């Protein structure tokens, strides 16, 4: 009995469970009956091109966007009337900053805490810890408008942790940041995950998803087009190696039949060749002086582009 309970609450407990989740705006269906579930303690990635429906899905989880159909259990609760109770256990880093410009760094945290009915000495100590955690202690009394983009993002993360949430939703947490700021945020997110919290993250940076996420879904046009761990997705959908050939590719005729099987895709001035054995092709290309070639292991970005296409969105 005891072990059964343990199994239920520690291993298979689902923080989010969506079935047939659907959202329409007028004629447009932007989330089309998606199914997914997020187990407790995971970092779960939601990827997809612009307009795929990521933010809409996150808003439905928060209960601020009403769904048109489907089931959506958060912490086992599926009841719009309980949305405020559910939100009390969630932290949110929104896609666009919405820090309060009328307040300083520390006031932003204390006022936000008051929205969770958190007051007093305990929250003061928590704010001190959070400022330390996000390396903003020396900025406590700075106005928001003079903070750098990275500092604002860190403050938003501190703010999302104010209520000691079980689930943290991050909508593009590192968009627009420099590599230093991004690495700093990655390390903090890993720490948060290690402390046992569940992360749900959207991003356009495949490297970010590969580094942080245990499990990923790729959305396109409101559908889920793939799901799995970053490694599994790469193994399943893409050959092991990629050869990128840039330059006057049209003017050169390469007879690909003489090489091991190779899936090819032309994007702009670049020809992508996906293959499990790149050596014969590379050897041949070496003799073609004017072409620039690059060989690398396949990654999540290749999966993303294969599944969602190369055309622009929006």
């Amino acid at each position, binding site marked *: 009995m005891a072990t059964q309970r343990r199994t239920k609450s520690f291993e298979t407990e689902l923080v989010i469970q969506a079935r047939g989740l659907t959202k329409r705006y007028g004629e447009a269906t932007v989330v089309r009956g998606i199914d997914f579930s997020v187990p407790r303690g995971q970092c779960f990635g939601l990827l997809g091109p612009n307009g795929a429906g990521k933010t809409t899905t996150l808003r439905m989880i928060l209960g601020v*966007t*009403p769904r048109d159909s489907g089931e959506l259990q958060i912490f086992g609760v599926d009841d719009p009337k309980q949305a*405020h*109770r559910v939100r*009390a256990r969630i932290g949110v880093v929104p896609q*666009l900053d*919405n820090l309060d410009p009328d307040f300083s760094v520390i006031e932003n945290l204390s006022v936000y805490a008051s929205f969770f009915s958190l007051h007093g000495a305990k929250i003061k100590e928590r704010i001190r810890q959070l400022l330390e955690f996000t390396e903003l202690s020396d900025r406590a009394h700075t106005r928001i408008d003079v903070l750098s983009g990275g500092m604002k993002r860190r403050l938003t993360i501190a703010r999302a942790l104010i209520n000691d949430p079980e689930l943290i939703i991050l909508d593009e947490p590192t968009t627009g940041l420099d590599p230093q700021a991004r690495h700093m945020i990655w390390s903090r997110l890993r720490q948060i995950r290690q402390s046992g919290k569940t992360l749900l993250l959207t991003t356009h940076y495949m490297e970010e998803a590969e580094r942080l996420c245990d499990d990923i879904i790729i959305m396109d046009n409101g559908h889920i087009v793939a799901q799995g761990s970053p490694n599994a997705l790469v193994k399943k959908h893409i050959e092991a190696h990629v050869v990128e050939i840039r330059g006057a590719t049209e003017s050169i005729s390469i007879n690909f039949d003489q090489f091991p099987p190779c899936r090819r895709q032309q994007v702009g001035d670049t020809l992508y060749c996906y293959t499990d054995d790149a050596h014969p092709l590379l050897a041949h290309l070496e003799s073609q002086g004017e072409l620039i070639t690059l060989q690398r292991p396949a990654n999540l970005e290749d999966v993303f582009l294969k599944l969602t296409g190369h055309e622009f969105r929006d």
Partner: protein
Amino acid sequence: MTWQLPHINFRALSVWRRNVLVWRKLMGPSLLINIGEPLLYLLGLGYGLGLFIGQMSDMSYLTFLASGILAASAMNTASFEGMFSVYTRMVTQRTYEAMQATPLSVDDIIAGEILWCATKCLISGTAILAVATALGAVHGTQALFVLPIIFLIGLCFAGPAIIMSAFSHGYDFFYYYLTLFITPMFILSGVFYPISSLPTGVQAVVQLLPLTHAIQLVRPLVSGQALTDVGLHVGVIVVYTLVAYYFAVVLVRKRLVV
């Protein structure tokens, strides 16, 4: 969901408190604006015109005007807060979006905002009442009952202003409401002269306006004359308040809960 009656919850107080904290930071300029204009009316018109007019409705023109201005400035303060400031928080600064990620709902946010609008009216109304008293325009301590009336006027005019914010896509839109509703009320509802001097047809319309009833409560309290039809006047203002509150909540839900 959208058309449901608003839920009232103590969480609204945290929204109210946020605005109090911001106001405290900018207290000086804010008070100056909220008191400066009414004071200009009192000094400029009250003394200037008062010299020619002498008595109006059996009281000094300064008293007559001061009581009208007390009510009208509450209308203005609530309207400006409910439009320019609420819109800034709802759209420009996305403060409501941040609040919606917490246990706060749109119902809580709007209740907190309306409460804050009324509080701001109360603060500047208290200051104007003090100035009017110093100028000798106030007769008797019953005038303190003006303060709850000013709070009520604030609640009443906050709702329509927030409705404007819910429809708006920019600050310019608010000048339609100010020009078409607030300014006519300011001029016609008995701030500057008794409405009995208006043509009967116009009087009938003016009797439907909330500011008219607000002034008919404030004026006797300031001048020390007998208060009449309290139930009617309070009733009209309360009905406006409740209807506007309901639609303010519904329309902001329609805008933010999508």
